[in-house]
């Protein structure tokens, strides 16, 4: 067996998984505050990338300024969406909330399209394009930044949800909105904060992906769908799970791409995450780290 090949696949899987983990974190944040799944997460990512692109190539801002402004925009976007769409739905059926996010994804896609068209637009190289050699394989620098972001995010978010008053209040809101109201928690505010944070995290993912790929277009939003198995695998309400899930799926994709694809003639790389997902759910129905839903009478 070719050890270098194996190592190359594993390391590449790890770094690619870091982006998955980052995007997955966005899902988890919203889930933790509202127990809803935001299926427009991929579009958040796309919007973030386009905003940053605009700032960089149209206004020629330095990268860090562009990022900060993108953050502000994303946060506003998140809060706006909460105000206009999520707030009226407080207390409605979970599926309705999910479906609304699907409608939202159409809207965001259409808006981007109206403004930027459907062409793939080149993304400026904000960090050096020279890949870095990790062991036997060169890795795009963008992925290294992703790993950095993910590490910081996990630590901060885990602490936030566990110890901060707001973090706990968010989880309380997810548990029962009505009771949260009687505690004096502003459910609206919790939603707004979580959507804002989630949109910002996604924007980071979008910017990183944009630089890694060199160009952005509508297909960026596909990342939302791509990351779903990651979120589920890790457990919907677990930040740690998002990371572990991202890494597992990243590595799995690469291994099956390297070893199974040649046997079956392609396609294994894309289904492998889903097969793994089903297998793992059989044994751990709430993902690897997800909390079991309490069903008691």
């Amino acid at each position, binding site marked *: 067996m070719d050890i270098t090949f194996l190592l190359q696949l594993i390391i590449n899987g790890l770094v690619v998984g870091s982006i998955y983990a980052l995007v997955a974190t966005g899902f988890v944040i919203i889930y933790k505050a509202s127990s809803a799944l935001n299926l427009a997460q991929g579009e958040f990512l796309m919007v973030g990338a386009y905003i940053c692109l605009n700032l960089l190539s149209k206004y020629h801002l330095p990268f860090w300024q562009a990022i900060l402004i993108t953050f502000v925009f994303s946060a506003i976007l998140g809060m706006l969406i909460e105000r206009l*769409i999520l707030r*009226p739905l407080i207390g409605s*059926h*979970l*599926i309705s909330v999910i479906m*609304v996010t699907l*409608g939202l994804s159409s809207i*965001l896609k259409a808006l981007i399209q109206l403004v930027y068209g459907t062409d793939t637009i080149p993304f400026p190289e904000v960090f050096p394009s020279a890949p870095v050699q990790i062991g036997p394989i060169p890795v795009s620098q963008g992925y290294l930044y992703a790993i950095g972001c993910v590490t910081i995010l996990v630590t901060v978010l885990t602490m936030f949800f566990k110890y901060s008053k707001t973090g706990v209040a968010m989880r309380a809101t997810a548990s029962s909105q009505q009771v949260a109201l009687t505690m004096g928690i502003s459910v609206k505010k919790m939603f707004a904060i979580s959507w804002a944070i989630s949109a910002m995290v996604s924007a980071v993912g979008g910017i990183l992906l944009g630089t890694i790929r060199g160009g952005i277009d509508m297909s960026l939003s596909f990342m939302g769908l791509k990351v779903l198995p990651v979120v589920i695998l890790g457990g919907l309400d677990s930040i740690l799970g998002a990371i572990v899930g991202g890494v597992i799926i990243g590595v799995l994709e690469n291994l099956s791409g390297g070893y199974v694809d040649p046997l079956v003639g392609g396609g294994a790389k894309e289904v492998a995450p889903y*097969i793994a*997902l089903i297998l793992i759910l059989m044994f751990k129905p709430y993902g690897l780290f997800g909390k079991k839903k309490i069903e008691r009478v």
Partner: protein
Amino acid sequence: MRCGDFKTSYSADMTIFESNSARVMMGLFLCLLFSLPLYTPGYLLDIVNRIGIAIIGAIGLNILTGFTGQISLGNAAFMAIGAFSSGYFGTKFGLPFYFCIPLAGLMTAFFGMFVGIPSLRIKGLYLAMATLAAHFIVEFLIVKWESVTGGVAGLSIPAPKLGSFTLNSDARLFFLIFIIVIMAVLFAKNLFRTKVGKAFVAIRDQAISAEVMGVNILKYKLLSFGISSFYVGVAGALVSYQAKIISPETFPVTVAIDYLGMIIIGGLGSILGSIYGAVFITLLPELLRLSTSALAGSFPLLVAKLAATKELVFGLFIVIFILFEPSGLAARWHSIKNYWKLYPFSH
């Protein structure tokens, strides 16, 4: 004036139609419906046919998701299974459509029950994602299993034949589709008046106490997956006749999402809602397409913007509908009906 509830026997209290006038209205509606092919141009009839198919599929999904509470994103895959098995039986064994369609339903039901097995342990969004996973796995298998499915090239489906009579036009397919639609609606309506259907709803509302009421949860969940998939499989078979060529690309995951949209916009756990939702979600893109292409004729350079606008409007419609009708069109219909029934004493 009809006012209040004056039932004299329990069986009268349990009928589908509340009064004789409702029955007459329904009869009139059916006459109108079945005379459609007489005066509707083919391309419109094609849309009507697609609505019919969507109704069957949406009822199927609603049985599982709306009534039993098991969110499924596997509808497109189930449909594909129906379509390909019907196509396979039809082309490889030359079976006539009236065998192919039920067979497609059964195959899909079988597969649906298989997918449903983990539902005893996997719940809620996790189950939804498991069905999504099932979608991608099925897609993969369809692409790979070329000897049966024709791979990416797909299968070419001959028009269904009844003896020497070929159902090769939209009007003829219309009758096939809508007869099945009526059977599907009636069966579902009845189902939820009786034991099995009520057990489904019980599982959705309170699985634990349903179990204590003597409902075998696994059995009924599987049954729900089975019945739902049967419906969806039949819908898939009909799609194959309508599309004439089916390939993996005919059943992308967006189809599953559209179906979810139908039952939410129409009303979860409502047969009538499934119908409204199917009509709405099928018509909306057509209407938008028609209006954009009408505009595009006069402003060809605008067409790209219009295309994006179409998507925007679609998204807006979905959002607005859910915001203002969170419990679906069927619920709104009921409250309007009740309002008029008691008018002018509605408060």
